């Protein structure tokens, strides 16, 4: 057995304690929702674990269940729980079983969450050294939109990239392999991963915001420009730590996205199931303006223990 570093166990305990302390002071309620579900989030980018012989799955995210509770009138809630994703290959940034923090702020949008992230991280720690790089966590963090980042680092005008033919042409001109089967998302991410993400500043935290609408997930489309969505991710030391957004509360749009995801899953040969009707009904019954975010606790542990491989901070995990 690989040796277990006790400091890692203690660091994780301290982080969890500090998070609970922060949300307690903010007046948030800690909730607990099941990890065993019958209709998991159908995102076609995460495969789920199915319980053998039963129509039950290990949840890849607590989001649907939390929103059901919010629809009952609970406001300002957070949950720290396990989530499960069946990654097809081993990599240094993902675990099949991981610890996730989600919080939902009432009557708020994604910019309020950005402030929450700054405050939460500063409540836990002020400065740190990660992979030989000194990182100052004090706010305000640098904020850059996806459009600005693509323009600055990849010399791509994202406004022009939305049309698939344009995206194919831009990628081809840059020397990437392009074929008719490539989705828009793949073309976007190939430029992002090759030309944008490696150049994002790492000496201080960074918030990347206003994602293109095809990557909306469960976020609200911007009123001012429907090509973009009120979604952001934040990076510390080059590690993506969390993904938040102004929540989509329109049940019709939500149902449409769930159905589309299930069709994509089927096409990709992934596990298929019925979508979560209770979740759609919860939105139908009305959900107040809310912003919510998921943060990977294991990634925080990596950061605070200076580990480059997430498996090092999850001893005993398979």
């Amino acid at each position, binding site marked *: 057995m690989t040796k277990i570093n006790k400091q890692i166990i203690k660091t994780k305990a301290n982080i969890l304690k500090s998070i609970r302390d922060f949300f307690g002071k903010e007046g948030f309620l800690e909730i607990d929702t099941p990890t065993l579900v019958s209709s998991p989030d159908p995102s076609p980018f995460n495969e789920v674990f199915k319980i053998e012989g039963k129509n039950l799955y290990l949840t890849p995210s607590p989001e649907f269940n939390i929103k059901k509770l919010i629809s009952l009138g609970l406001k300002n809630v957070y949950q720290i729980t396990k989530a499960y994703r069946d990654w097809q*290959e081993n990599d240094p940034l993902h675990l099949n079983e991981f610890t996730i923090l989600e919080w939902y702020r009432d009557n708020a949008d994604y910019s309020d969450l950005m402030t929450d992230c700054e405050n939460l991280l500063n409540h836990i720690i002020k400065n740190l050294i990660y992979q030989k790089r000194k990182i100052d966590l004090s706010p305000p963090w640098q904020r850059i939109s996806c459009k600005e980042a693509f323009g600055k680092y990849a010399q791509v005008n994202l406004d022009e990239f939305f049309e698939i033919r344009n995206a194919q042409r831009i990628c081809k001109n840059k020397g990437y392999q392009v074929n008719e089967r490539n989705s828009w998302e793949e073309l976007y991410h190939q430029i*992002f991963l090759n030309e944008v993400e490696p150049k994002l500043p790492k000496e201080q935290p960074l918030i990347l915001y206003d994602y293109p609408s095809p990557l909306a997930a469960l976020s609200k489309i911007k009123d001012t420009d429907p090509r973009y969505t009120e979604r952001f991710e934040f990076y510390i030391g080059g590690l993506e730590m969390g993904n938040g957004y102004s929540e989509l509360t329109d049940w019709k749009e939500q149902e449409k996205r769930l159905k589309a995801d299930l069709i994509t899953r089927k096409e990709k040969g992934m596990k298929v199931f019925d979508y979560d009707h209770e979740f759609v009904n919860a939105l139908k019954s009305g959900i107040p303006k809310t912003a919510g975010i998921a943060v990977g606790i294991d990634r925080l542990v990596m950061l605070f223990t200076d580990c480059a491989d997430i498996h090092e901070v999850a001893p005993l995990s398979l």
Partner: protein
Amino acid sequence: MSTIDTSYIKKGLCIIFRDAPHIVVEKTFVSPGKGSAFYRTKLKNIKTGSVLEFTFKSGEKLEEAPVEVKEFQYSYSDGEELFFVDPRTYEQVTLKKEIVGDFFPLMKEQDAYQLYMLDGQTIALRPPLKVRLKVVKAEPGAKGNTVTGATKEVELETGYKVLVPLFIKEGDIVSVNVESGKYTERVTE
């Protein structure tokens, strides 16, 4: 020379990238938040030695570099270089240890290995998918570590240490995945 899929990319493979032969020195699976699967690689240009990073979409097609692959017998290492001999001609060739990298602790003297050749020069070792090695040190009837209860560490004939299931004993031949460095199975003789 053959066309391969990104799933076949592994450390040590020679591919043509932007018209030049490159060795894959690092490969990791990448999955962006709400995105498809990608492979992040570090590629070393065989001719210039310069290293670059490139992230491939899963499923991209690549050409294996048209380098010659020749089988040699590994003789020994002086700490910096590895010495090989052609078993037919007794021609001796060398390879820098750093080029072999993580694979070195799995190499056994007198075993045959495939080397990449370009213009008569050895450029890299083409690592196999798995190696079979004998267990030389194992705690007898070990209960294993009480925390996991499922594995124990054993030493293989090359000195490499690996976690194996409790039933593995001294003298067993085990198979190790070269890429992950992990035990895969007991090889019944």
